């Protein structure tokens, strides 16, 4: 309708006539929208960043951990194949994983790959930590007992010497992560040297090439010894976890099912709900991580949304003042033919234009704040079109809700009284 366009022009002119006030009026909305946009962006960015790091675990590896519930396994930090964090906090040099249900037999059964076409390789892992003297400083270093397949599953290659093989199973032999080797020997090749671990002399057989860190495990700062030797040192009989590599990316689900069936069988458990182990896939971790990130984002965003309500109340206040100041103008408009709904429309539109302008500025500010926060936090914020659409819709709704009362007040004015006002 042409009249609507005419009135919209009047609304825009009224706002432009008082730019300074308009800007102050929308400040609350600008800050509210900026917080929402920045927080949504940071939340999504964090989620993407963690998901990306989990992806470096490899899409085809599964981790079998002791304990019945997958959630319990996650809390123990064992998802990536090492319980180093958990154990290093206990304060003892060699910490056992007493009560693990993952035996030598389980490993052997899973390794019988001719019966499990979806499983390519399996490695047993025992995680602990030890203290090494590096340049005169005592330093706690994660120690991982592994079976030979471990290196191939995680794509770890030797830079010097060789990796641990079956022939090393009972020997006090050791492979160094690249970082540990650099800390201890600089750039030199330490192959063949002896190193004291817990009072025992170990022979260094190789050094790993530097490898990318994953979410839960830094392969470069570890010592690797044969799993059997680690178990003997720790006085345990079972693995802390088993790492299962599926035959291909598409076979992770099948591999998990095969591993589950085999382990239930060897453990003689009939009801899968009573399983004394859990099988974790990177997908599970991604799902849980995204759920946690989503919950946190929602919480923070709802706090930011409160500032939008405060901003809306600010708009309502200024609009009420404006209606009072413009009483004569409203009376005049009515005298020259404005209907009640024309006045209502104009003032409502002024409120919505204000909040939409506020949301536009807020979105820009939100990008800025998000970028800054991303720089500080070390990952890029991800501001989705959906977040922007949400900001615009919410801002318009705030304008409608908080503009309604002042607009209704303006529309209800009696033109005779309004013209006499002041």
């Amino acid at each position, binding site marked *: *309708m*042409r*009249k609507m366009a*005419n*009135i919209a*022009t*009047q609304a825009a*002119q009224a706002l432009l*006539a*008082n730019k300074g006030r308009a800007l102050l009026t929308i400040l609350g909305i600008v800050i509210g929208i900026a917080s929402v946009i920045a927080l949504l962006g940071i939340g999504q960015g964090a989620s993407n960043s963690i998901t990306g790091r989990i992806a470096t675990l490899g899409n085809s590896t599964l981790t079998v951990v002791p304990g019945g519930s997958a959630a319990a396994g996650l809390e123990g930090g064992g998802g990536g194949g090492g319980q180093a964090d958990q154990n290093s906090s206990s304060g003892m040099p060699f910490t056992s994983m007493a009560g693990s249900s993952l035996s030598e037999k389980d490993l052997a059964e899973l390794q019988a790959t001719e019966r499990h076409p979806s499983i390519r390789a399996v490695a047993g892992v025992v995680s602990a930590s030890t203290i090494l003297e590096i340049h005169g400083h005592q330093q706690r270093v994660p120690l991982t007992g592994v079976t030979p397949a471990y290196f191939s599953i995680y794509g770890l290659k030797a830079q010097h010497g060789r990796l641990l093989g079956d022939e090393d199973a009972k020997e006090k032999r050791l492979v160094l992560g690249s970082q540990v080797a650099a800390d201890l020997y600089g750039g030199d090749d330490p192959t063949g040297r002896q190193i004291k671990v817990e009072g025992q002399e170990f022979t260094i057989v190789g050094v790993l090439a530097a490898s990318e860190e994953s979410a839960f495990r830094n392969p470069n700062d570890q010592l690797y010894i044969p799993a059997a030797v680690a178990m003997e040192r720790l006085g345990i009989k079972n693995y802390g976890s088993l790492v299962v590599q599926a035959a291909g990316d598409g076979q992770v689900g099948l591999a998990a099912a095969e591993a589950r069936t085999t382990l239930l069988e060897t453990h003689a458990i009939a009801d899968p709900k009573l399983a004394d182990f859990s099988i974790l896939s990177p997908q599970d971790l991604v799902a849980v991580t995204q759920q946690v990130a989503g919950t946190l984002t929602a919480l923070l965003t709802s706090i930011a949304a409160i500032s939008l309500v405060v901003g809306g109340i600010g708009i309502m206040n200024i609009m009420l003042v404006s209606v009072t100041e413009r009483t*004569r*103008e409203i*009376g*005049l*408009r*009515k*005298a*020259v*033919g*404005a*209907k*009640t709904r*024309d006045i209502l429309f104009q003032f409502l539109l002024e409120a919505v234009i204000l909040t939409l302008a506020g949301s536009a500025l807020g979105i820009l500010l939100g990008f800025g704040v998000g970028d800054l926060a991303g720089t500080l936090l070390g990952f890029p914020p991800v501001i989705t079109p959906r977040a922007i659409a949400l900001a615009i819709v919410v801002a318009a709704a705030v304008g409608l809700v908080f503009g309604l009362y002042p607009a209704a007040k303006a529309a209800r004015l009696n*033109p*005779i009284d309004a*013209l006499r006002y002041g």
Partner: protein
Amino acid sequence: MQPLIELLQVTKTYQSGPEKLQALKGIDLAVARGEFVAITGPSGSGKSTLMHILGLLDTPTAGTYLLNGQDVTRISKGRQAEMRNREIGFVFQQFNLLPRATVLENVLLPTVYDNAPPPVARAREVIEMVGLGDHIRHKGNQLSGGQMQRVAIARALIMGPALLLADEPTGNLDSVTSLEIMELFRMANRRGTTVVLITHEPDIARLADRTVELRDGRITHRARGGRR
């Protein structure tokens, strides 16, 4: 010929607390097309109430108001607004311009509520007519009182109304400017607009074709104007 305005036994009663205040006590008034009528009377005589009823800003408590032969006594507020927009132009004592809007924007104000694009050419014409052709881009608050009232007259005429209602239009102006403004009303009147002017100043009332004197809500005196 059908008069433009016909009031038949119009009364207006205000309830003020427990007391009833009768502002108009049975007004009979006819204004012919093309007339220039002044309504005079002391303050409290009911002339403002009469003007509000004539301007469709208020409705009578009893009686009948025929505007242009149409009974407008009890039409809806929306219809009143439409009639005010198309048939009536208002000029106020306080000018009531939008201070931050230009002369052109002020004159175009009534056209906002017409379902048509702004008739800018027509606005220029009316502004030229009231003698403000050089001030078209000036802001409302950059004008003198006389100039503001000229803008208000242009605004009242933009929609080409049948009736121009002026409420003490010279109340805030010096005598020379007052006469200039009255000359504009005469000009509009010569071009066919019926003018009803409310004033308490006898010198101004005398410039009309006819005066109607109001006292305590009743018409007490009717006279032909002294101008011609």
